[in-house]
């Protein structure tokens, strides 16, 4: 088949199989493929496989350590080779030809990018072939603060200053509350009137001021607890936050 190896195989190059010489199996394959000196589209994958396997075999014969990924590739290529040589089994998917084509496309792509990289590096490069101005004056934008404030802020600020200076006067406002005594009297009177369950809140007059109502709710609840303790009243609540129902016991 193909030449056992048409690569210059100096000892130091072989040594570098798993270090720096090639950047992995694909790189080695590309190097071998390029040695076929044909367009990568025309490359013989079978010949390439032969070359790769021969190369690895020789490296191992020399008792050189071959990195695992090279061996994995070798195993895969050996499989590919036998599949290509054996009569085609339509059951096998993907077909060996497809696998070979995929390998060929990969080599073409790597080769294209390698060449693109080389052409890129050969362009007129800044700092090597073309130069910027060595000592630019520089364009500077100086920020000039533009202070902003409005009249309301100004007046409000003065008000705040003056307010700080005025001695603070604490006025405790007289708050309207329902005392516990009043509440006990109210609740006892109301449970005397009705026989059935009634909402505790319904005992309170409707026309109360909001502040007083809050106090009345709190006081009448405490009053109810007190009456329940004395055994004069029963509680029921169907759910949390549901109306608190009471009746005489």
């Amino acid at each position, binding site marked *: 088949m193909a030449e056992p190896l048409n690569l210059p195989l100096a000892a130091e190059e072989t040594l570098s199989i798993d270090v720096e010489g090639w950047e992995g199996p694909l790189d080695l394959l590309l190097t071998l493929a390029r040695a076929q000196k044909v367009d990568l589209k025309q490359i013989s994958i079978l010949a390439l496989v032969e070359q790769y396997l021969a190369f690895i075999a020789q490296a191992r014969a020399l008792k050189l350590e071959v990195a695992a990924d090279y061996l994995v590739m070798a195993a895969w290529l050996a499989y590919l080779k036998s599949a290509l040589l054996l009569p085609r089994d339509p059951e096998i998917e993907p077909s060996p030809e497809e696998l070979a084509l995929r390998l060929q496309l990969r080599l073409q792509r790597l080769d294209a990018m390698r060449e693109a990289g080389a052409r890129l590096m050969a362009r007129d490069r800044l700092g090597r072939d073309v130069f910027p101005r060595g000592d630019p004056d520089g364009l*500077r934008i*100086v920020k*000039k603060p*533009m202070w902003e404030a409005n*009249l309301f802020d100004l007046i409000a*600020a003065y008000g705040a200053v003056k*307010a700080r200076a005025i001695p603070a006067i604490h006025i405790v406002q007289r708050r309207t509350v329902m005392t516990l005594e009043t509440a006990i009297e109210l609740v006892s009177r109301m449970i005397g009137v009705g026989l059935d369950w009634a909402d505790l809140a319904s005992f309170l007059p409707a026309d109360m001021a909001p502040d007083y109502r809050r106090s009345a709710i709190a006081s009448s609840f405490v009053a109810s607890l007190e009456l329940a303790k004395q055994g004069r009243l029963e509680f029921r609540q169907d759910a949390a936050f549901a109306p608190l129902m009471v009746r005489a016991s």
Partner: protein
Amino acid sequence: MIADDLRALEAALFAAEAPMTPGELAAATGIGDIKGALDRLGSAYEGHGIALTEHGGRWSFRTAPDLAHILRRERPEPRKLSRAGIETLAIIAYHEPVSRAEIEAIRGVQISKGTLDALLEAGWIKPAGRREVPGRPLTFATTPDFLDHFSLASRRDLPGIEDLKAAGLLDPIDLAMEQQLRLDAGEGDV
């Protein structure tokens, strides 16, 4: 177009990191009559936005002096006055002329140097003479720009203490807070 030797000289001067002597330029470009070449290059750039200049025997391209404004441009940047700034300005406006110590006495807090600086920079206050008391402290007053910025015809247009009181701007802090708390509680009831 420009002669070949001048092209080289032009590029060497452009890329140079510091002004170059005729000797250095001759070595870099291989031009024999470097003085002549510098003369010709200088003429070629006459009337341009950059000029070939010589200082102490060293040559370089520099921006034409009349275009210096391009190198340094001012861009206004709006900035909000700090709380200390606005309070200080308000005190000066209501009490001018007023010294720093007096401002601090009214505010009940010291003012940092930056606060007065910002107001001076904004052009809203100006020094207004020294007070004839021990230490001769400098006083400050507002400027016409101040009236202009705040759309005031004169300082008399500033609301008086009574107006502030009516607007609720003079309420002692504690009272105002209590009102707020009562308001919040009331809302909770609804």
